[in-house]
C-alpha cells in the first residue's frame, strides 16, 4: 500500500503476501501427532496386558488353601504359598527395622547437619548407591552375613533389602525436611527448645506425611525384589521359624515356580504374583490412609 495521508506508516509494509503453511508441513504435523498417540498406546498396551493376565490367570487360583498351605511335593496338585507370604513379611520387617531408622537418620543428617562439604559427599554416595544393581547388593549381603553365619537366613535377606532402602529413604527424607520452613524451626528455638528436640518433635513432625510417603516408596520398591534374596534368604518349601535356616519369600517362590516345567506350579506362580501386587498396593494404601487419619483439620 503506498503511503497516503491516512496511513503514513503504510510505506513500511512491503508488497509481500505470506503463503499459507505448505501441505508437507501440515501433514508432518498431523503425522507426528498420530505417531505420538501411537507410542502412548504401545506403551500402555503391555501395562494393561500384564494386569489383565495377572487377574485372569491368577484370580482363579487364589483360595484359602493357597493362602494357608505350604507347597506340596512336585507332582501333587494343590498346596499354597503361605510360608512364602509370611517369609516375605518377616524379611521385609527385618529390612524395615534396619533400613528405616538409618535412612531417616541419614536424611536428618543431610538436611539439618549436612549443608556442607560432608553432606555433599553423603548425598553423592547416596545417589550412587541407588544405581547399584540389586543382584550386586545380594552378593554383598552374602559376604556380610551368609558367609559369616555359614547358612542362608531371613536376616541376610533383610540386610540386603535394608541396604537398598537406606539411600532412597535418606534422599526423600532430606527433601521433605528441607520443605519445612526455617521459620518453624526458629519458632521452636525461640521457645528455648533444644536442637535435638526441635529436629525430632517439630521439624520431622511437620514433614511426617512426606517422610512416610518416601519410606513407603522405598518399601514398595524392595517388596518385589527377587535378585538380592536369591543367595541370602534362598527360599524354602516349608515353614521356617528358626533364624538360622533359609526362608521362603513370595518373589523367590514366583521365580522358581515360573521357570519350573510344571503347569501346576505355573498356575500358582500367577496367583503368587497377583497376591504380591495386592499386598504391596495394600500396604502403601493402608499407610497413606493412616497418615491422613492422624492429621488435624486444616493442618
Amino acid at each position, binding site marked *: 500500500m503506498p503511503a497516503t495521508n491516512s496511513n503514513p506508516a503504510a510505506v513500511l509494509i512491503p508488497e509481500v503476501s505470506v503463503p499459507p503453511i505448505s501441505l508437507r508441513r501440515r501433514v508432518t504435523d498431523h503425522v507426528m501427532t498420530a505417531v505420538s498417540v501411537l507410542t502412548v498406546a504401545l506403551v500402555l498396551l503391555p501395562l494393561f496386558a500384564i494386569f489383565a493376565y495377572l487377574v485372569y490367570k491368577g484370580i482363579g487360583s487364589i483360595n484359602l488353601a493357597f493362602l494357608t498351605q505350604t507347597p506340596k511335593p512336585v507332582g501333587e496338585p494343590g498346596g499354597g504359598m503361605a510360608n512364602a507370604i509370611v517369609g516375605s513379611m518377616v524379611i521385609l520387617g527385618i529390612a524395615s527395622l534396619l533400613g528405616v531408622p538409618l535412612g531417616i537418620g541419614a536424611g536428618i543428617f543431610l538436611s539439618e547437619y549436612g549443608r556442607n562439604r560432608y553432606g555433599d559427599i553423603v548425598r553423592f554416595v547416596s545417589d550412587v548407591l541407588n544405581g547399584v544393581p540389586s543382584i550386586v547388593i545380594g552378593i554383598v549381603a552374602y559376604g556380610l552375613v551368609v558367609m559369616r553365619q555359614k547358612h542362608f537366613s531371613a536376616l541376610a535377606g533383610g540386610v540386603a533389602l535394608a541396604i537398598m532402602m537406606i539411600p532412597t529413604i535418606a534422599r526423600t527424607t532430606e527433601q521433605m525436611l528441607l520443605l519445612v520452613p526455617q521459620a518453624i524451626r526458629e519458632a521452636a528455638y*525461640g*521457645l*528455648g527448645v533444644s536442637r535435638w*528436640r526441635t529436629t525430632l518433635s*517439630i521439624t520431622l513432625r511437620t514433614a511426617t506425611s512426606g517422610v512416610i510417603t518416601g519410606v513407603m516408596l522405598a518399601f514398595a520398591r524392595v517388596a518385589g525384589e527377587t535378585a538380592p534374596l536369591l543367595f541370602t534368604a534362598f527360599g524354602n518349601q516349608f515353614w521356617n521359624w528358626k533364624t538360622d535356616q533359609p526362608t521362603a519369600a513370595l518373589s523367590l517362590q514366583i521365580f522358581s515356580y515360573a521357570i519350573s516345567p510344571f503347569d501346576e506350579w505355573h498356575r500358582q506362580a500367577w496367583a503368587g504374583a497377583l497376591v504380591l501386587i495386592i499386598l504391596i498396593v495394600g500396604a502403601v494404601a493402608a499407610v497413606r490412609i493412616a497418615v491422613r487419619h492422624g492429621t*488435624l483439620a486444616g*493442618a
Partner: protein
Amino acid sequence: MGVGITVEHLNAFYAKTQALFDVNIIVAANHATALIGPSGCGKSTFIRCLNRMHETIPEARVEGSVRIGDLSVYNGTSATQLRRRVGMVFQKPNPFPTMSIYDNVAAGLKLNGFRNRKQLDEVVHKSLQASALWDEVKDHLHKKSGASLSGGQQQRLCIARALAVQPEVLLMDEPCSALDPISTGKIEELIFQLKEQYTIVIVTHNMQQAARVAEFTGFFLLGKMIEFDKTEKIFTNPSDKRTEDYVTGRFG
C-alpha cells in the same frame, strides 16, 4: 515482673560482614522499647542478638556483652536456657502447622519436658487470655490446627505461645508488618497491657507504631545506634540530625 537488659559494646557479624557496630543500650524493665530505622539498618540483627537467635545462622558471630537482669547472655548460659527467659515473636506468624491450638500454646512447656496436665491447662488458659485470643478459640482448642486461624489470630497465638513459657522479656520483630490494621490495633493494645508484666523490645519500621506503643525508642542507622531516648523526645526534639531526618520523613 520484667527485667532490664544491658548491652555493652555489641558487635555482630555475618561471616566477614559486620552488621552491628559498638551498640550500647540499657533497656528499662517493664517498659516497651521500640527500635526504628530504615531497612537493613541492623535492628532485626540486634534484637536477635538478645536471645542468641543470631547464632542459628551459619558463620554468624557476636562480640560484646549482653546482660538480661543479672544473667549474662553470652557467658555461662546455654542458649536454650536463655531462650526460656526471653520470648520472641516473629515478623510472619509461624504457629506449628501440625499441632492444635492447645498444643501450640503448650509447645514451649511440653517440648521441654513439662507434663502436668492440670497446670498445662491453666497456663494455656492464662496465656490465651493474656493475648486476647481465649474467647475466639476456647471451643476449638484441641480440634483446630494452629494454621487454620486468620493472620491476626495466628500472631496472637504466637504471642500466647511465647507467654506460656513465662519469660521475663518479650522480643517482637516487626510483629504487625504482615497484618491488617484491625489486627495490628488489637496487638498494639495487647503490648500496652503486657508491659505491666514483661519487658518488651519491639522492632518496627512503622514510626507511628513506635509512638503509640513504646516509652523508649532507639534509632538505628547502618548498624549503629544513633540515638536512644524517650519516644516523645525522639519524635519531637531529636538530638541528632540524622534522627530528625528520619522521623520527619526526609529518607526512609
